[in-house]
């Protein structure tokens, strides 16, 4: 089991190293060789993951923690590398390796002769390593390392077409959202150490195996940690009010949009909450918050998605809608349903996003096949809603619920103004010290 799990992780890591080293040495691999490396890496990783699942089924083992030893340690602190193999991590591992492999194969043709061909695959490998790190992590510390890789690879792929201004600005925006929300995860991990002296899942939660595990943290700490973990998941999963970056992330190449925002990365927040589902279940306030946030996001995203004028934004909001529902399911305590929902949603949405460039052609073919126009969706809105409310909702949806404007007005603007004032004061102080009229 240990060897198989290590091989799952080694596949993308080795492929990343091969692509990075050859590029650094000024001898980047030719396209077909890069594609081959990627295919071999993901295929072997998938086979290993499949082997893990088979071994669990045959042996009846429901959960196993693999201790790889200490990475480093000082008296009073050791960072232990531990991985967990159970009914939550294995489906996600299979999903990650399978979808990454499919996307890799698709992208090797889609990005043919693109100048950043090898860069894309390096970032895809980095992403896969991060995602596998998140899903296999045996502790919040290890999970955080994978989480960081996810954030970075996501931002770099949004800004993949870096010679255009918009992708660059959108990548910065997405990364800022990630980083702010990462504070929640890091603070949650630190508090977890404070509360129970460890962040290893097998020591925090008692019980036989996921999902039949229970948390027994002190109430105060449990509430704060649950709140922090929910906050961390809001950024990655683009929930209200932090969903503004999500449609902008569609500036990246379509294969990366499919794997990140249709299939895997967008569910990382949900995974974090599922892994800590026992803690959420211990705190009713956290459950209520998740249900409210999830349902609000679902309503918001379905409304906004209906007024988008491009297919990728439309699909992005459709993704957010489903993730909102998944979070609500976790809030209600339906953890296994949430896993099934995630797997189904990831597969269908990745397919839709990969087909997005051919959407018009697909529609024309369908219309030709049925011999007329397809029925428009959402017509029931006009039957049940009064006209004045419809136009108000339309306006609200066009402005994406004014979330970005409100955040800018209430949070970002004042903080930046404060920091600029501090910077101005610093410069005035320096000018005074220097006795320079010009600098003042």
């Amino acid at each position: 089991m240990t060897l198989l799990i290590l091989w799952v992780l080694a596949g993308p890591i080795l492929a990343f190293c091969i692509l990075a080293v050859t590029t650094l040495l000024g001898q980047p691999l030719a396209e077909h060789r890069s594609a081959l490396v990627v295919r071999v890496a993901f295929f072997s990783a998938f086979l290993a993951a499949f082997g893990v699942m088979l071994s669990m089924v045959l042996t009846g083992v429901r959960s196993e923690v693999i201790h790889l030893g200490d990475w480093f340690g000082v008296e009073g602190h050791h960072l232990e590398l531990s991985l967990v193999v159970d009914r939550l991590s294995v489906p996600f591992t299979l999903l990650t390796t399978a979808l990454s492999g499919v996307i890799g194969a698709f992208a090797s043709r889609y990005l043919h002769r693109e100048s950043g061909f090898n860069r894309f695959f390096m970032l895809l490998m980095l992403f896969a390593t991060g995602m596998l790190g998140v899903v296999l992590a045996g502790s919040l510390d290890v999970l955080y390392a994978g989480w960081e890789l996810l954030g970075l690879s996501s931002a770099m792929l949004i800004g993949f077409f870096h010679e255009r201004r918009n992708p660059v600005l959108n990548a910065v925006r997405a990364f800022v959202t990630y980083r702010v929300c990462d504070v929640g995860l890091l603070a949650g991990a630190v508090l977890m150490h404070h509360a129970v002296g460890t962040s290893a899942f097998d020591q925090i939660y008692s019980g036989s195996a996921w999902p039949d595990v229970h948390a027994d943290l002190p109430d105060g700490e449990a509430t704060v940690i649950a709140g922090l973990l929910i906050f961390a998941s809001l950024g990655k999963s683009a929930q209200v009010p932090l969903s503004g970056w999500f449609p902008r992330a569609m500036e990246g190449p379509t294969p990366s949009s499919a794997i990140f925002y249709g299939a895997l990365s967008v569910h990382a927040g949900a995974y974090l909450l599922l892994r800590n589902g026992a803690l959420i279940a211990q705190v009713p306030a956290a459950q209520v918050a998740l249900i409210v946030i999830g349902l609000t996001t679902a309503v918001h995203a379905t409304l906004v998605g209906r007024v988008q004028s491009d297919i990728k934004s439309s699909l992005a909001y459709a993704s957010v809608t489903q993730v909102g529902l998944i979070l609500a399911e976790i809030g209600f305590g339906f953890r296994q349903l949430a896993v099934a929902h995630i797997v189904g949603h990831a597969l269908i949405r990745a397919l839709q996003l990969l087909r997005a460039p051919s959407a018009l052609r697909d529609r024309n073919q369908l219309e030709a096949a049925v011999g007329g126009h397809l029925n428009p969706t959402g017509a029931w809105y006009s039957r049940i809603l009064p006209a004045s409310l419809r136009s108000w909702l339309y306006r609200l949806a066009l402005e994406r619920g004014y979330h970005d404007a409100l955040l800018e007005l209430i949070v970002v603007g004042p903080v930046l103004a404060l920091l600029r004032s501090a910077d101005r004061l610093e410069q005035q102080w320096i000018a005074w010290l220097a006795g320079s009229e010009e600098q003042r």
Partner: protein
Amino acid sequence: MIPLLLGLCLLLPLVAGLWLSQSREEQFARRLAASVAGITLFSATGLGWSWGRAAVPVDLGPVVAGEALFHVDALSATLLPYGALLSLGVLLVAPRQVGRPQLYGRVLLAEALTLGIFSTPHPLLFGLLWVLSVLLPLIDLRGRPAGRQTVRVVGLYMALSALSLVGGLVLLRLDPSARTTNVATLLLLVAVMSRKGIMPLHSWFPEVYRRGSLGGVLMLTMPQVGAYGVLRFLVPLMRGGDPRELQILSVLSLVTAAYGAAVGLVQKEVRPMLGYLAMSHSALTLAGLTGTTPLHLVGGLTVWISSGLALTGMGLTVWALEARAGTLSLTTASGRYREAPLLAGSFLFFGLASIGFPGTLGFVAEDLVASAALGSRLGTNLLIILSSAFNGIVVLRAWFMIFGGPPPQDAQPHDLLLREKTALYVLAGSLLFLGIYPDVLVGMWEQAAAELVHGGR
């Protein structure tokens, strides 16, 4: 073997530096300086390795006022290669147009002073080298545009730092009574705060990055000799007593770390951004070193080395890029990727290493500092987390603003020179190697921390 290697580390750059200060031929000066720095790095690494085999502190050099001038222990054995590596990097990357022969001489002299500081526990020699080490950057600054005003600002802070240090050390030496020790401690605190840019004595830090030659600035700020002063003179003073002064310094350091990272977010040019980033990391180092347990000290030491290597790499990348593209603005996306893809990769790697990216020494540093802070107040943890979050945004924003966006119409790809590649690859390799096998250093630092906390120098 150790005395010979230490002699080479100290004398070779000193003699070559003095000689090159008079040199007129640029290419010869660069080659000689780089060779000397290379040999010094080799000697320093050899010294560290030799010391590690026996792992016994050694007194060296003449005895002055009852104390040997030099002392090699776990702390010195790891810091000497670090200081030598920084100097070699600066010499290899120094762009030709600013490469006046005198610059190479000054870098070597700065290296000799830094390595001298890292190998002495003697207060008098330490004070002398500290004062001399601030004079070199001031000479360098005088030749820069608007340099005179900056010399005045930096000179004021450095004078405060030097006077406080000398006053503190002299007081300690003359009268070791409790009352005098308190005054001396306060003076040493002021010296360290002004040298390391801790609030409220921090304003010179971004300013010197804004106006100084990056090579000189990196040699002034990256060795972090103030941190060495804390370990050698302040931590032992507090041993077994009430470390209230260290707690105050710790709080101020954490506030500075968060403040530097936050103000770095609104910078409009790369250099002050780099200055605030360096200020934030310098403060974070000090926050670790002012702790009272080995875990705190090891955390601080790890941040010291990892941020020093990473920010030196970033600074050298910016220096190389400025030599090709001029001043770098952060207000619009400048599209420099096409001109310098390797520099883009280098900036990103070192930036990520500085913010604790997994696989680099920065991740180990972040983990150790966060773990060390676990027993502290919640506010301490929050400030560390905020610093980390803000610094991450600063780095990525800078990368996208420098390298993203439409390329200039006349953009031509500039490959990196072999010497630049060598410097950047060695720094990056060190960060990666130590990130994957941190126990190579962490073990030695644990010993150094134990000596500092429980006894010894």
